[in-house]
């Protein structure tokens, strides 16, 4: 009888420890690492923009939260109030395109890119305002 109680106790403690560990892990779960995650879609920036401007709902269903790799020409480069760089890839005009907020780890690389240059950028799609927005972006080349 004592033996049985001991087993039950051990199992109980094990369950609690595993539960706690899982809880702590979940609570501190790291953000998605874009650099290491594989792109769900690869396309020219203009194609992504066109799909959103043709049918926003369909594009939302297809692309929201997905990792997307886009290629395009830099139309604008700006800094936000945190010092992060946002590169806008033109598609189809300078007025609208794909806006990519660059992950701080890639700020130095982003500083080197100039307007008119072609870049390949990977980021998470959050939707469309005036531009299609990608966040946590890394510069591939």
């Amino acid at each position: 009888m004592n033996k049985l109680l001991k087993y039950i106790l051990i199992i109980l403690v094990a369950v609690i420890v595993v539960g706690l560990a899982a809880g702590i892990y979940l609570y501190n779960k790291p953000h998605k690492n874009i650099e290491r995650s594989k792109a769900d879609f690869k396309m020219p920036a203009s194609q992504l923009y066109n799909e959103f401007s043709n049918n926003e709902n369909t594009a939302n269903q297809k692309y929201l939260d997905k990792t997307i790799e886009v290629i395009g020409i830099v139309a604008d480069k700006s800094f936000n109030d945190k010092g992060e760089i946002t590169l806008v890839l033109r598609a189809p005009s300078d007025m609208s395109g794909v806006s990519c907020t660059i992950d701080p780890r890639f700020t130095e690389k982003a500083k080197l890119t100039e307007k008119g240059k072609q870049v390949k950028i990977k980021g998470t799609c959050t939707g469309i305002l005036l531009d299609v927005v990608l966040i946590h972006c890394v510069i591939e080349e």
Partner: protein
Amino acid sequence: MKSVIFSFIFLMCTTGLSFSQKYIDKTGHIWFYSHTPVEDIEAHNRQTTSILDTKTGELIFQVLIKSFEFQRSLMEEHFNENYMESDKFPKASFKGQIINIASIDLTKNGTYSVDVEGDLTIHGVTKKISTKGTLEVKDGKIAGKSKFEVIPQDFGIQIPDLVKDKFAKQMDVTVEMNYELMQ
């Protein structure tokens, strides 16, 4: 003579057009903050898009819900999936007016207090709000700031009893924009 008058009218019209001044910011900063003894919650969105018409006082804001960044990814997940339902309602917006626009001159450098009124749409629910803010004009650029409170329940956002202690009744929302003349 006729042609002179005509060109004069034409000139009036075109300069009139160029006076309709629209300012834009596509990387504005909106954040919210909730404080309770149990937990502080804070999230930032630096892809806020806004257009300000300095002539009519018309003011538009749009944010993507999924662009809000939290310190903890679990909070971000809950915010999107459980509370804001961002797959269903990917955007929040404000469309309104600076109601005292006639009494301020935004072509001159200076800091101006503004009263703003309009429709705030969050989670698919639209409500009228009014708030105060400041516009600081400096060499053709305009920095806009405002602070207001949002009560999640007003917008049909349900917070389960189990985690109610973690959320303040009101969220403090702060807006900071840096407008440039729209090309």
